[in-house]
């Protein structure tokens, strides 16, 4: 029992909301109810939920195309999220952004980028605004292992440490960048070794260990809020499916697939909940509650209208462009 029981329950609830939501979206795609590009985060539900559980609602989040779990764990309402994924005008972004570009300032989700590495410099700017204003906010930016080889990562890390910005570089190391395994895109054995290149604090953790994951996340948040500067947090996890929904992943070795199955965070977390004396009934009730929410969100998305062509003239500039 290394973490607070209520906090663990919070993490479990966020995790299951991510998990049930992913299942729902995938079933909609499978059933032809949806036909969109979707990057499933299966296997990464817990790392993100534990991270977000350490944040305040007002804290900022910058994530990627594979960030639906980050957004859900941060609190984006499922109905608005599903509507956006479905390209409906009731979605967070009126259907203009889609799954790859969710934005929802009310819950602190400021940018979801489709360009690898580009979220990191932007996160610095949000953190810089907080530093100048003294508003106490912390910014978290999520990215993958593959993103650590692109220039933007390097420039952002160096600047964040130089300015001691209240930002957390949250690398969800799922061992693959598209079809490329970690060992085939860099010659170091973990991302966290790069923190030293900037004089930054770096922490590596088994992201599927809820207690450990939450603990290091909370420490990083506390440091940032206390003005002690940024942290590079490497959470080890697995991308349990292809790069995007439906993508082949035959390039993954049998060994890797087997190891991955062992490491599924969901059964492991469920077991931990029981160790913490939560009952099967309690846990099932939470999932049932989430499922009704998920179903309602699907209904909302399905019933909503598509945006009209006039939306092409809106939001290009502040003033609508004349027809």
């Amino acid at each position, binding site marked *: 029992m290394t973490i607070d029981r209520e906090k663990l329950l919070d993490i479990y609830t966020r995790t299951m909301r991510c998990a049930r939501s992913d299942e729902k979206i995938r079933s909609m795609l499978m059933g032809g109810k949806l036909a969109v590009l979707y990057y499933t985060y299966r296997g990464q539900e817990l790392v993100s939920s534990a991270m977000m559980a350490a944040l305040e609602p007002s804290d900022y989040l910058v994530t990627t195309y594979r960030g639906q779990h980050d957004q859900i764990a941060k609190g984006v309402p499922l109905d608005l999220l599903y509507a956006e994924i479905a390209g409906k005008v009731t979605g967070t972004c009126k259907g*203009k952004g889609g799954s790859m*570009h969710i934005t929802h300032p009310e819950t602190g989700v400021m940018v979801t980028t489709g360009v690898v590495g580009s979220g990191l410099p932007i996160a610095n700017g949000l953190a810089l605004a907080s530093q100048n204003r003294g508003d106490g906010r912390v910014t978290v930016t999520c990215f993958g292992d593959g*993103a650590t*080889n692109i220039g933007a990562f390097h420039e952002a890390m160096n600047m964040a440490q130089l300015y001691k910005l209240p930002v957390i570089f949250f690398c969800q190391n799922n061992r693959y960048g*598209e079809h490329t395994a970690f060992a085939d895109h860099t010659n170091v054995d973990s991302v966290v070794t790069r923190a030293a290149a900037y004089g930054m604090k770096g922490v590596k953790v088994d992201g599927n260990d809820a207690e450990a994951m939450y603990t290091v996340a909370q420490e990083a948040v506390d440091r940032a809020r206390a003005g002690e500067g940024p942290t590079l947090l490497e959470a080890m996890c697995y991308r349990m499916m292809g790069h995007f929904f439906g993508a082949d992943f035959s390039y993954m070795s049998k060994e890797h697939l087997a190891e991955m199955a062992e490491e599924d965070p969901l059964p492991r977390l469920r077991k931990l909940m029981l160790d913490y004396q939560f009952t099967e009934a309690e846990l099932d009730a939470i999932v049932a509650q989430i499922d009704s929410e998920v179903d309602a969100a699907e209904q909302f998305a399905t019933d909503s209208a598509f945006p009209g062509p006039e939306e092409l003239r809106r939001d290009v500039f502040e003033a609508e462009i004349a027809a």
Partner: protein
Amino acid sequence: MTGKITMVAALNRAIDEAMAEDEGVILLGEDVAAKQGGGVFKVSAGLTEKYGEHRVRSTPISEQAIVGACVGAALAGMRPIAEIMLMNFLTVAMDQIVNHAAKLRFMSGGQTNVPLVIRTTTGVGVGFGGQHSDMLEAWFAHVPGLTIVTPSNPADAQGLMRSAIACNDPVIFIENILCYGITGDAPSPAHRVPLGKAAIAREGSDCTIITYGRTVLDALEVAGQLADDDISVEVIDLRTIAPYDEETVTASVRKTGRAVVLHEAVKSYGTGAEIAARLSEKLFGELKAPVQRIGGAFSAVPMANVLEQAWIPSKDAIKDAVRATIGWKN
């Protein structure tokens, strides 16, 4: 080699044959090698097995390093091909392309040159949204030293790729994702399409549609429909977007007296502006109607399918533009 072939297969064949002929031809890009599946779009499938991992290199996600390495290898006399997964990602490699690849021959007074092909894919209508669909050819057309090509059919894809690889200067090779699956007659290995030469995709006498890439197919379809109304449309497939085949274009419009310039890229400040400006100047007084331009809407590419479809130049818009030139009264 007869029978049908897809554009992906044609590109693969062109690269394969070039690699077989010249050890200097190498391929760098994300996931291009066999271990990673031979490229996300499979254009490099089978090449690692034949030519080895030193000539088909999967790279980290580092576009500046990819293009830069290709510039360096080209300076050393190799003929590298860089695969940049999507055109929007060229935005992280612009310095290498514009300040280096395009200029090194000039800045070195001709002592060095950069025989480099940058392959990239894009296209609107795929459902990839605002950061994965842009057509940025106009940027590169504005940069002296670069040649920009794009095929609209498998035979041209094969012939243009061979010419691009053989070119002693940098070539930006744009592949439209929606054209990958197109099938067409398989040309012989000897087939070449010269850079800088446009094709008359369809002959006509009333109006000329000048376009390239996927919209060539739209233009041909529209031309077919208008033929039923006795409107004879000539369709020019530029193939080399820039520097373009001005001779062929000007001659055609001089003949028809009317022109519609069409591309998928945003209309404003697109390549169509240059073509329209040149035609309007060169054929001043000869044109029977103002040159019409059609292009993408003035916004980022939206994700919602209905909006994305509204963003793309429609066949009706093409048809209306042709009719507008023909019905023109001052």
